[in-house]
């Protein structure tokens, strides 16, 4: 039964040809309409959030954490210029002025790069920590097993051919 269901699902996804769902389409239309309504802000975000879009597009499916890191910092970089746009003159020209301003765009993109850097550094630190922790646990397990064998003999590890025996280590 379960196999049948999964096959049916696969068939459905193939039939849709990888096209966006109805919900997605509605969301996209709403997004475009909102962009048209707030065109200056939308243009600023469209250009400023380019690193995030690239990260989202390039990022592996199901691994959105890295893109999220970049998005967060990229967004933080955009915030001051959006506020600037909204405070002065929320027009297409003002938005274009910010976009074409090298310094502004540098700030936004450096923030995004900083996000990338956070991802690289924190991931490295955390994975290294977890690896060491795993190694320590393996050693502890081995010691505990040795203790059990010393108390109960080799029989506790099962006879020859046990797939979970000590020899498998």
């Amino acid at each position, binding site marked *: 039964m379960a196999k049948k269901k999964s096959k049916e699902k696969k068939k459905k996804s193939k039939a849709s040809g990888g096209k966006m769902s109805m919900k997605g389409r509605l969301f996209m239309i709403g997004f475009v309409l909102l962009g048209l309504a707030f065109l200056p802000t939308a243009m600023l975000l469209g250009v400023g959030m380019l690193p995030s879009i690239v990260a989202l597009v390039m990022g592996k499916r199901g*691994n959105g*954490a*890295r893109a*999220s*890191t*970049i998005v*967060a*910092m990229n*967004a*933080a970089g955009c*915030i*001051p*210029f959006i*506020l*600037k746009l909204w*405070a002065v003159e929320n027009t297409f020209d003002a938005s274009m002025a910010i976009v074409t301003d090298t*310094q*502004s765009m540098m*700030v936004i993109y450096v*923030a995004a790069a900083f*996000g990338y850097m*956070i*991802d*690289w*550094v*924190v*991931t*490295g*630190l*955390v*994975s*290294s*920590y*977890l*690896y060491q922790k*795993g*190694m320590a*646990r*393996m050693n502890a*397990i*081995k010691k*505990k*097993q040795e203790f*059990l*064998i*010393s*108390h*109960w*003999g080799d*029989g*506790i*590890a*099962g006879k020859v051919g046990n797939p*979970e*025996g*000590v020899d*498998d*280590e």
Partner: protein
Amino acid sequence: MAKSGASDNLSQNQISFGNKLVISTNKRLPLFDNGAALAYEAHSIVNKRKKLIAIVSGIENLPRWTAVAAYKNLNDASFMHLVDSGSVFWPLDNTEKFVVIYTGGVGAPLVEEGGFGSTSWRHPEIVSLFIEPMVVMLKDMRDKGFSHGSIRPSNIYCPPGAGSNTIVLGDGLSVQAHSSQSPLFLPVNKALADPMGRGFGTIEDDIYAFGVSLFLFLRKHDEFSALGDEEVLRRKVEFGSYSTLIGKERLQASFLELLRGVLYDDETQRWNVDDILSWLDGVRLTPLTSMKKKKANRPLVLNGKKYFFAELLAVDLHHNPGELSVLIENGNLDRWVRKALDDSAMVERYEKALEHASSFDDASSNNDYFVFHLGIALNPVLPARYKGMCFTYDGMGAILAKTAHENKDMAVFKEILNLNILDYALVAEGMSEAMMLTILKQYDACRSALIGKKLEQGIERCIYTLCPDAPCFSPKLRGYFVYNPESTVLTFEALCKKGGQISLMMDKHLLAFFAARDSSLMSTFLPDFNSTEKDRQISGNLHFMAALQRRAKVEALPAVAGVFVESLSGVYKIYKNTVMRKRIEENVRAAAKAGDLISMSALIEDEDALLKDENGFNIAMNEYKLLQREYNQYNKKLASKKTYGLTNGHDAAAMVSWLVSTVITVIVVLAFISGNRIF
């Protein structure tokens, strides 16, 4: 070994028996000998004036140690009072012997051994002096299930002192029943058998022996001194016991009636104790008629002798098997049995014998088998005769035991069992069906034992099944008289002290001995003994020796324990917890020092401790498996160091990033609200 005590205060010619008795090896009492069992003077350590009689019997006599308990139950004062019995090291022969010690002071025997022809003991009041006390004794023996087997004038004593009017019956325990009896005192079926093959003895045989003894005291003429045992037997077969003994003797009619009853050859019709008591009360019983034997109308000549009676021919069949074969081949025997004798019952038996003999695969090569069947057909009363041995249905066991003791070939006994010779001999006895079935089952068990491969089986098991009085004949126990748990453990203690013993103490003989004697005790341990694992065999030996120590109530066996403790290293492995194993090993060593096999046995297989150990092991094994599973998972994940923890790292980075982003956003917004523009 069992009863040999400390001998510090004894002279060279004295040995101690237990803690209270001393036997003087240089003071013989030949008047109290019972066949090959020799009597010696003994005394109590407490009261040296109290004289005792020690009758010393070698293992070859198969003393009746199983009958000791029944003898002790006898109430009548006319039996010699049994003080003690057991095995003792006999320095004169440098071996252990069985000793039966009786209270002395019983006077002299009525007749000296072998002096039947010159019996001088006469008394006008023989009824009150001899018959009455003997009948009371016979009644007591019947009631207590004991048969004496050695009733004869030379074994009946008259205590000293004037006015003494009682007799004392001598020893009946130191040798096999009837083995020391002259054929004169035995009915034909027992007298013709080899001395060791006369069976367990019955009260009917004792009554017969009493009758012969009474006759010897009553008779006035001596006809037997000139006759040999063989001639007396031939006459008994031909004319019957009563006619042979009484002959031309003139006795009182009342005595003749008694003698006719007690000397009747047919055991089933012979007077029993109640009949004799009735006779004493003056009741006249239905007189027994003498059994008439059919006489052939022409003789059969065998070995130069003419035979008119089939019963007598049966006795002599084995003397010349070659001539017998000729008689069979030329049909003379067949014609004589069928035509000259004119006895339909005998012809029927004869035909059956021919049938049985022909059923044997190679009948021509086994003439003895045919002679056996022919003998039974011609005279069913006779004991079985096969390959030079003659025995009753219950007498072969003792001959087998003696052969085993002498270390001789026992193949012929296997043949006897496999050819059902004992079964045929038993059926010819004509006993009750229930009793017969019990004995036949015993023979079947022996045949199963012969083909059995287990340690407690084999011909050894047959010895101890068929001869209850046989001590253990294990080669390890040569020179020792081992017959019960006490003598077993004490003998092994002595052997272990000498050195060279191993923990696998029980051999085929010992196992067969105890399996036959005490199957309930043995059955628990047999799987251990028959195991192929050496450690299990060792623990089985220890458990069994501990059970024997408990039965024997012997406190310490340090030498035996010492042998075991050195070989138990593998046995401790039954405990899986090494800490517990070590603790138990220490406790076992402590128990071994004290010679306590019972504690050692309990420690190496403590059920509670074993249960805890097993439960602990199972818990630990599960824990080990879970740990191993976890280890394998880590091992798999950590195999790629580059990718391990990346997901978690990215998640953490996202969290950090969002945190930083939020802080920046808040600062920017606050700055914007407060009018401080950053860009």
